[in-house]
C-alpha cells in the first residue's frame, strides 16, 4: 500500500494542457464518444454502479444525483462544475484544471448527455484567474474540434466568498446575486439554477467520469475502500517533509499519507495532530492515524474526509492558537443569512480569543462546547454546521492544551 494511483491526475505532466491534441492522443474524448452510443439511463447506471461519491465533501452517490436530474421534467437543465475550491489547504481542483482541463470538460459533457442538459457552467474561484484563462482556452479548442457537440460550457468567476462552495450559494452567485445558501428542499437536481434541474459536481468528481465510462464501473468499484471507491487527491501542508500532493486509493491510511508519502515530520519532531478535509475538519490525534482516508471510515472517528486537505501540526504547535485563527476564519466567512451561524461563529471566535489570551476558564470551554453542538444542528448550511468542528474535536482530543491556558 501507500502507492500513488493516478486516475483524475492521469495526464499530469504527460500532456500540454493547452493542446487538445495531446489530450486526444492519450485517449481523450473517447469516453464521451462511447457514452453517446449508450442510452442516457445506461450511462447513469454505470456511474451509479461504480459507486463514485462526490469529492467535494458531502460524499453523495454521483450516479444517484444524476438520476434525480434525469427524471426531472423541464425544458432546460444545467450541469454546473463547482470549481470554487476555497477550503484552506486545498488545491486539488486547481491541479486538475491547470494540468488537464479537458478531462473536466469531458466529464461535464458526459453528465450533460446523461441528464439531458445543453448548457454547462464552470464556477471557478476568483483567486484562480490564471485557471480561468486555461479553461477558456480549452473550451474554445473543444468547440473548434466539435468534440462537445451541442453542449455549451461557460466559465464564470467567483469573487472571494468561501460560502459559495456550498452548492446553492454557488447557484445564487451564478445568478448574479449575493452567494447566500438557499433553504432546502428543493435540492438542485430538481430545482437549481434559474429553478431548473441542475447537477452541481465538484471538479475531482467530474474528472473521474471519463475513466469510469472508459474502463467500466466494476474496475472503478474495486479500487480502494468499497464504500467510497476510487482515489482521493490529498494536499499536504503544515509540519510535514513533503509539502505536496498525492493521489492515492481510498484504503490508504492517514498514517501512510503522513509518514510514507509525506516523509514524516521535519527536524525529528513528534507528531501532535492532523486536520483533514480542510479548515472545517476535525483534528485527529495519533491514536486514530490508522484510519483509511475514505468517507465512512473518517465519519466513524468523528472526522470528515472533506476536500482531502491534510494539515499536520508537530509537537511544538499551539493547538489553541491555531484553532483561534480557524474560528476567526469562520467569523469572516459566515454569510450572515442565518442567526446561528452569524452569531455563533462570532461568539466561537470570541471565546477562542479569550482562551488563547490566557483569560479563559472551564466555564468558557463548556460554553463553547454547548454553542458548537447547537450550531452543528441549527445552522442553515454546511459552513455553520461544520464550523465548530475544529474546536469541538480539539476539546475532545487535546483538552489539556486548553486547560493549560486557563486563568
Amino acid at each position: 500500500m501507500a502507492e500513488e494511483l493516478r486516475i483524475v491526475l492521469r495526464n499530469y505532466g504527460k500532456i500540454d494542457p493547452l493542446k487538445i491534441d495531446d489530450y486526444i492522443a492519450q485517449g481523450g474524448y473517447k469516453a464521451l464518444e462511447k457514452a453517446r452510443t449508450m442510452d442516457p439511463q445506461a450511462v447513469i447506471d454505470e456511474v451509479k454502479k461504480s459507486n463514485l461519491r462526490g469529492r467535494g465533501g458531502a460524499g453523495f452517490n454521483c450516479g444517484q444525483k444524476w438520476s434525480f436530474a434525469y427524471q426531472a421534467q423541464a425544458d432546460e437543465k444545467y450541469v454546473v462544475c463547482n470549481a470554487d475550491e476555497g477550503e484552506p489547504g486545498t488545491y486539488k481542483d486547481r491541479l486538475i484544471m491547470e494540468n488537464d482541463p479537458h478531462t473536466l470538460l469531458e466529464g461535464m459533457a458526459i453528465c450533460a448527455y446523461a441528464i439531458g442538459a445543453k448548457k454547462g457552467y464552470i464556477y471557478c474561484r476568483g483567486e484562480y484567474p490564471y485557471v480561468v484563462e486555461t479553461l477558456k482556452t480549452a473550451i474554445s479548442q473543444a468547440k473548434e474540434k466539435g468534440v462537445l457537440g451541442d453542449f455549451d460550457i461557460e466559465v464564470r468567476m467567483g469573487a472571494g466568498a468561501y460560502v459559495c462552495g456550498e452548492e446553492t450559494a454557488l447557484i445564487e452567485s451564478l445568478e448574479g446575486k449575493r452567494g447566500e445558501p438557499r433553504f432546502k428542499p428543493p435540492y438542485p437536481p430538481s430545482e437549481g439554477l434559474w429553478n431548473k434541474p441542475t447537477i452541481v459536481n465538484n471538479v475531482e468528481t467530474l474528472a473521474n467520469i471519463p475513466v469510469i465510462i472508459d474502463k467500466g464501473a466494476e474496475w472503478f468499484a474495486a479500487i480502494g475502500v468499497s464504500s467510497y471507491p476510487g482515489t482521493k487527491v490529498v494536499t499536504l501542508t503544515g509540519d510535514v517533509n513533503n509539502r505536496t500532493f498525492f493521489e492515492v486509493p481510498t484504503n490508504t491510511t492517514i498514517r501512510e499519507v503522513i509518514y510514507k508519502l509525506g516523509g514524516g515530520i521535519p527536524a525529528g519532531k513528534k507528531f501532535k495532530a492532523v486536520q483533514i478535509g480542510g479548515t472545517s475538519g476535525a483534528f485527529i490525534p495519533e491514536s486514530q492515524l490508522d484510519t483509511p482516508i475514505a468517507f465512512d471510515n473518517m465519519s466513524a472517528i468523528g472526522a470528515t474526509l472533506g476536500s482531502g486537505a491534510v494539515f499536520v501540526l508537530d509537537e511544538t504547535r499551539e493547538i489553541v492558537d491555531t484553532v483561534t485563527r480557524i474560528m476567526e476564519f469562520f467569523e469572516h466567512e459566515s454569510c450572515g443569512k442565518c442567526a446561528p451561524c452569524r452569531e455563533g461563529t462570532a461568539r466561537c471566535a470570541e471565546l477562542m480569543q479569550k482562551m488563547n489570551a490566557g483569560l479563559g476558564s472551564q466555564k468558557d470551554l463548556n460554553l463553547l462546547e454547548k454553542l458548537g453542538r447547537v450550531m452543528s444542528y441549527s445552522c442553515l448550511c454546511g459552513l455553520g454546521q461544520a464550523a465548530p468542528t475544529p474546536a469541538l474535536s480539539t476539546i475532545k482530543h487535546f483538552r489539556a492544551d486548553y486547560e493549560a491556558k486557563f486563568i
Partner: protein
Amino acid sequence: MDYRKVISDYAEVPGGVLEAFHAVQAELGYLPKEVIAEAAKVFKISTADAYGVATFYSMFSVDIRGKNVIRICESAPCHVAGAAEVVAALERELGIKMGESTPDGLFALEFTECVGQCQATPVITINGKPYLDVKPAQIPSIIAEYR
C-alpha cells in the same frame, strides 16, 4: 474608461453582474457608486441589490484603494508557516497597516483567506499573481517590481 460600455457588454449575460463588476474593477481597481447604479439599471435590479452584491464578495471593493492590490493569506497553513512575519514586513516596507492604501495610490494591503497555493506557504498575491514561499527579507524586492 467608459464604464457604461464595459457594463453594457454584459447586459445580455444572465446573472452577468459579477462578470461586469470584475471587468470594471480590472480597469478602475474598485467599484465607484456610479458603476453600481449603472449596473443596477442594466441588470434590472435595485441599487440596493447591486450594492449588496458588490459588498458581499471580498475581492470587490466599493472604496477607492491602491492600484496594486497585495493580499496576504491568513488561513491556517499560511498562519503556521509564518504569515505574521510577512505581514509585518509588508507593513514596514509600505509604511501602512493592513487594510490601508499607500498615499501615492500605488499599493493596497489586504488580508485574504486561502488562495490555493498551499504547496509553498506563506503565500501573497499581487493583482492575483501568487508569490510562493515568501520570506520577509524578499518583500522589498517583490514590492520593487511594482514601483
